């Protein structure tokens, strides 16, 4: 029995194989992460019980968009997209009365310009409803743009409160949460901020044209 050592395997083609795999993955995959605006649909109508309290008109901010993508707010004023945010902020941050669930007055609301409190705007952020009514002919671009503005308004207010309470912006909290999913402390902070300015957006089914 001769003791022969096993011949060395030629690894010269290893690079070729690896290149082939690399090129396959380059072609078959994408790098972009989807970015979305998330919302929640209301439950099916027959499941909803009658609301306990009627919504007072001052607590509802009505946005109407017609099929020509023109926007009417509170049934009386045409606004452009760029002016919507200020109006929404004023409405949400008004704090003119007591909130629901016995939270009392809104102590952190700053009111409109010059710290004034209007009698036509929301009592408390947790009562403030934004109602969005669209037409079947409204373009999706306009619709998303309005949702974006609403999102920005809520984020701005939440940033302010997060800065005040935790010296960090709300967006940073969300970013931290994305990288550290099981952090309970962060969860609590985010929930607290969200409760201060809950996102209550109601979409009315589009009128048929």
């Amino acid at each position, binding site marked *: 029995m001769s003791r022969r050592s096993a011949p060395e395997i030629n690894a010269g083609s290893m690079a070729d194989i690896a290149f082939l795999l690399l090129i396959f993955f380059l072609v078959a995959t994408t790098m972009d992460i989807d970015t979305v*605006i998330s919302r929640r649909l209301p439950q099916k109508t027959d499941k909803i019980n009658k609301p306990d309290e009627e919504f007072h008109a001052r607590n509802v901010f009505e946005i109407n968009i017609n099929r020509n993508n023109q926007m009417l707010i509170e049934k009386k004023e045409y606004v452009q997209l760029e002016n919507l945010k200020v109006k929404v902020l004023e409405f949400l941050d008004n704090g003119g009365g007591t909130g629901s669930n016995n939270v009392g007055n809104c102590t952190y609301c700053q009111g409109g310009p010059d710290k004034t409190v209007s009698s036509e705007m929301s009592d408390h952020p947790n009562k403030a409803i934004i109602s969005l009514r669209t037409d079947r002919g409204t373009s999706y671009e306009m619709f998303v743009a309005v949702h974006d503005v609403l999102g920005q308004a809520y984020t701005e207010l939440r940033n302010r409160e997060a800065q005040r309470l935790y010296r960090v912006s709300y967006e940073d909290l969300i970013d931290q949460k994305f990288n550290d999913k099981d952090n309970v402390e962060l969860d609590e902070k985010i929930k607290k901020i969200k409760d201060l300015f809950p996102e209550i957006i109601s979409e009315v089914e589009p009128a048929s044209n």
Partner: protein
Amino acid sequence: MSKFKKQNKTVPQISTASLPDVVFMLLFFFMTVTSMRETEFKIKEPILPNAKSVKKVEDKNLVSTIYIGKSVNEGTSGDLIQLNDKIAQVSDVRSFIMLNRVGKNDDDISRMSTVFKADKGTKLGTVADIKKELREIDALKIAYAASQTRKDQ
């Protein structure tokens, strides 16, 4: 002068032994940071609207995507819906979501969301019809896909 004698040496060959390592490293990098291309478009690829207040999708496995866009044939008007890699009707949305729920536990089902990837020019009527279907089967978490514009813009 012998010190400056002309050296008649050839350039040594560059070793390529580490090339596979380098390429494998690249390969693993791409395998980890990218994700599989989902579907081929049967409709004209939707151009997403722009938005600033967007979030990243958290778990791709819990997302069902509905594409809405125009037909590839120029001249045909109206919006088309694409589910997986087929052009579908509004009435197909239910079975599409139900199929995606198969094999998931209740906890996951409650976290599942439906993402609309719709073209800018889509009419809201189409989206509203789909939303109505989604409400019927309690798929209440929805999201509108948008491309992110820079914060300072």
